[in-house]
């Protein structure tokens, strides 16, 4: 299973939740599969999907899912400590770990070698950390969302590989405002 197939599999759950999606191909694939106003597509700032979702989850009661990649988490690994100590139960970090920097030409990341993001997350203080295959991810994501007492970090181990895809045509303010409208915070649209 690659990321495109995984994102397809997860749609039945993702489409009904607030999702912050990692820059580059993950967002482009998500957009192509099923564009939704409750999907916040990152157009820049690689590494911060986990942090943006955390900030949102701290300010509202609804479930928030941050979709991140192994390369992006490696770039902002300190945020796992913030998540471990501060994430509320409505927060789920889904790390799609394909062992490669997909958007830049599939160069290998350190999760292909010695680094285990599961061990890093546990060491950083995250209590509910699940590492699973792509096929097991939907079930674990649903479990995370229905647990009202804990935040979760899910590491979904899949194969690398991307589909040919175009950049997202939406401008950033459109993404921002329709996302905020889907939370119920914009009255002018």
């Amino acid at each position, binding site marked *: 299973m690659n990321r495109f197939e995984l994102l397809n599999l997860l749609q039945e759950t993702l489409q009904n939740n607030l999702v*912050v999606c990692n820059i580059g191909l993950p967002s482009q694939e998500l957009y192509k599969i099923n564009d939704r106003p409750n999907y*916040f597509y*990152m*157009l*820049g*700032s690689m*590494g*911060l*999907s*986990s*942090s*943006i*979702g*955390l*900030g*949102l*989850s*701290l*300010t*509202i009661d609804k479930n*928030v899912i941050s979709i991140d990649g192994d390369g992006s988490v490696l770039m*902002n690994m*300190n*945020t796992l*400590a*913030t998540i471990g100590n*501060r994430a509320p139960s409505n927060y789920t970090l889904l790390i799609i770990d394909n062992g490669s920097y997909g958007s830049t030409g599939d160069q290998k990341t350190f999760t292909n070698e010695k680094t285990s993001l599961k061990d890093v997350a546990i060491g950083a203080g995250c209590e509910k950390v699940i590492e699973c295959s792509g096929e097991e991810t939907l079930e674990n994501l649903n479990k995370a969302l229905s647990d009202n007492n804990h935040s979760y970090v899910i590491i979904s181990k899949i194969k690398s590989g991307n589909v040919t895809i175009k950049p997202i045509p939406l401008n*950033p*303010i459109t*993404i*921002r405002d329709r*996302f*905020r409208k889907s*939370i119920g*915070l914009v009255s002018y649209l």
Partner: protein
Amino acid sequence: MKISKKIISNLKEGGANFFLSVPCKLLANMIAILEADKEVYYSSIPREEEGMGICAGAYLGNKLPCIMMQNTGIGNSVNSIVSLLQLYQMPVVFLISYRGTPGEPVGAQGGMASVTEEILDTLRIPMLHCSAEKDLEKISIFANHAKVIEGPVAILCNFDLMKEDK
């Protein structure tokens, strides 16, 4: 404590209601005030760039976030300011302890101090300089200005002003 109390109270009056900090000696009193404040969210965080992301999320959830940090934190955060906060037009207040300004005992702080304002200027971020107690009165209108322009603003608190705040 008097100056730190005034800064926090003016930030709150300007609408700031979600606070993060990466610690600095000069921010210690403000951090202590916020830790005891039940009205607003406060947490310390390990790194400023991450804080820009958390602030972006808090803004999406309808908060006016304020991140407190040393001026060195601006250097750690340039891409996240431009490619996240400014790209999506998100208001965030930067409350900056301006290390390396006169009174600073640590010579090594002079380097970032000498380029801080040029970086903020290049990023087109409005700046409020606080070097005396009377300057603090402008903080609330300046925090609100972030909402008006839908982008980050920077409040710079000089070393001399903060070091007297026993």
